[in-house]
């Protein structure tokens, strides 16, 4: 750590991201929901419970990765004029396929997500990654980018889902919507009397996401401040070093002179 802080933190961004960093960037630093505010509709609509949020996350990971692969594969054949329509068709194809698979093998999830499955087509996250990343990078990094962003999206939905379900029902259930071989609940406070149904509804969705965004903002502000302090410290240090060097040089000069 001590070594790292000595490097110029401003320069860090310019460094080539390793594959691992490429994957993890989507989870916190470039989280699609909390940082980029992409895909807010599903983030509000399907996060009444943890499971529906996770289910939506899995579908998005699949569509995002698959469309990233295809877009990156054919990026050289597509003229600019028809880029957007081609991407729409590709994404819509994967969404339809995912929809059918969900309907066939996870019917409860299909029912609870409802129209938000076809609406993955217009999820800005997927179109955004296709145009901004996959159309400019090779297949391998596109896959990793898709997975990373997808996991970040899933993590955000899960976080919102946990918050809402816990406040609304006092428990976190599993196996209800996802086709798991078992069902039950992870946490069960049994505080039925204190359930706040408002968190199931639209109002709860808006407020919970607002609160989480504020928390992420607070963290961002804190980090910015810390960086600023670090930078100041670094500048001070450099100044000191420079002064030291000057003094040394002066001393040397003085020594030589002497």
């Amino acid at each position, binding site marked *: 750590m001590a070594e790292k802080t000595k490097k110029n933190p401003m320069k860090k961004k310019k460094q080539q991201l390793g594959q691992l960093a490429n994957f993890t960037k989507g989870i916190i630093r470039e989280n699609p929901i909390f940082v980029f505010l992409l895909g807010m509709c599903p983030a509000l609509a399907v996060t009444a419970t943890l499971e529906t949020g996770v289910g939506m996350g899995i579908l998005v990971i699949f569509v995002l990765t698959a469309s990233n692969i295809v877009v990156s594969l054919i990026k050289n054949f597509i003229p600019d004029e028809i880029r957007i329509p*081609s991407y729409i068709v590709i994404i819509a194809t994967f969404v339809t396929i995912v929809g059918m698979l969900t309907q066939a093998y996870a019917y409860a999830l299909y029912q609870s997500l409802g129209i938000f499955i076809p609406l993955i087509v217009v999820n800005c996250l997927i179109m955004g990654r296709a145009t901004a990343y996959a159309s400019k990078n090779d297949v391998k990094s596109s896959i990793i980018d898709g997975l990373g962003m997808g996991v970040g999206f899933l993590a955000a939905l899960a976080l919102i889902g946990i918050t809402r379900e816990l406040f609304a029902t006092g428990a976190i259930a599993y196996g209800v919507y996802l086709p798991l071989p078992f069902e039950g609940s992870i946490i069960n406070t049994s505080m039925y009397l204190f359930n706040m149904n408002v968190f199931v509804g639209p109002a709860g969705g808006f407020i919970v996401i607002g609160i989480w965004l504020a928390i992420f903002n607070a963290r961002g502000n804190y980090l910015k401040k810390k960086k600023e302090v670090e930078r100041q410290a670094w500048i001070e240090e450099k100044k000191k070093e420079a002064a030291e060097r000057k003094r040394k040089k002066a001393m040397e000069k003085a020594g030589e002179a002497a």
Partner: protein
Amino acid sequence: MLAKLRMALILFIIGSLSGLSIVGVHRLTEDAIAHNELMQQYDDYVVIFPDIDLSDLQEEDIDEDIIQRRIDAYDQNGDLLGYIFVGRAQGHSGMNTILVGVDPSADIVKVVISATDDTPNYAQIIIDDYLPNLSNQRIDEVDYDTSTGATNTYNSVRTVIDAASLHVAGDPAMEAYLSVFDDAERYATNFVFDDEALEEEINIFNAADEIIGYAYIAFIDDESVYIIFDTDDVYQATVSQDVDTSVYDDDIGTKIADIEPEDDDLGLILAELKDLLTNSTRVSLEYIARYFELYDDEDSHIGYTYVGIADGFGGLNVIDIHINLDGELIEYEVVRSNDTPDYINPVLENFEQFIGDSSLSEDDALADDVTVGATRSATSIYNIINAAFEAHAEREGE
């Protein structure tokens, strides 16, 4: 040009590939999806009867306005678990599909809302707080909650349960009539009495729509009692769940005029009926139920009183029409009406112009300036008086 063709070709290739892959996946998942959709329907059956044998479902299409089908549910051993009625009724926003599970003894097992467009939060209130109360109640005597906070959704449930109850419990009145007349097919109310104990006069019809008997519905100790006569006023039976009628068993087959009623609850009603039936003659017209002979103070026969009944604005209007031997209207008398007095009174006054006449002129009787705002009151009285003239003519003809 070439560039445009190239673009079109690329779009075409992308389109076909996407189409192909979608059709492929569709083929793959088709059966599973169909199965899921079917199971979803059955899911609700399982919720109602956990032991239900899904391979042995007997569905019967009913196709009424409300009740769509009935499912007979059997368990693995082939024992009857009960019935499931699938009904549709208007909810808060659109039609709700509601399933009512009933056991063989007509108790509700469970009520399930299987499809609804109502606001989820309100539908949830009903599902969580009010549907469980319905379980274990007899389907034809359900004690509904009055204020639920989601009235429309609850009313749709209520509508479906009430409609289903007709299919389960049968109709006690019809059962009573069938116990006397094997060929009874349907019944209709002929007259509604303005009386504390005696409620309705019923015509019982056979399949050929001929009247085969009469029944009088009375209330004794809050209990419906069906007193049944054949067309010659011969006493047939008194059917009741709890009231003891054995005292009159000896009178079965006797004309009402010859029965000597005892001094008990049923006896009082029989006495009343005896009085009514011996002094009046039945008429089978739509608006006239019966007539009495009319005597003046010196006991000389001056005419007839026709008892008319018709739907007014606030319910049934019962009106006595007095017609003299020459077939002229002498007087009319409102026995019972729930129509607003301010509306019906001018209408009644308007009919005074016909006193002394032996027919009605429709133009004068239903003149616009009189009937405005009271069309239904006016029409009901017009129909009754008209029918009374008709009945009188018929009686003269005999």
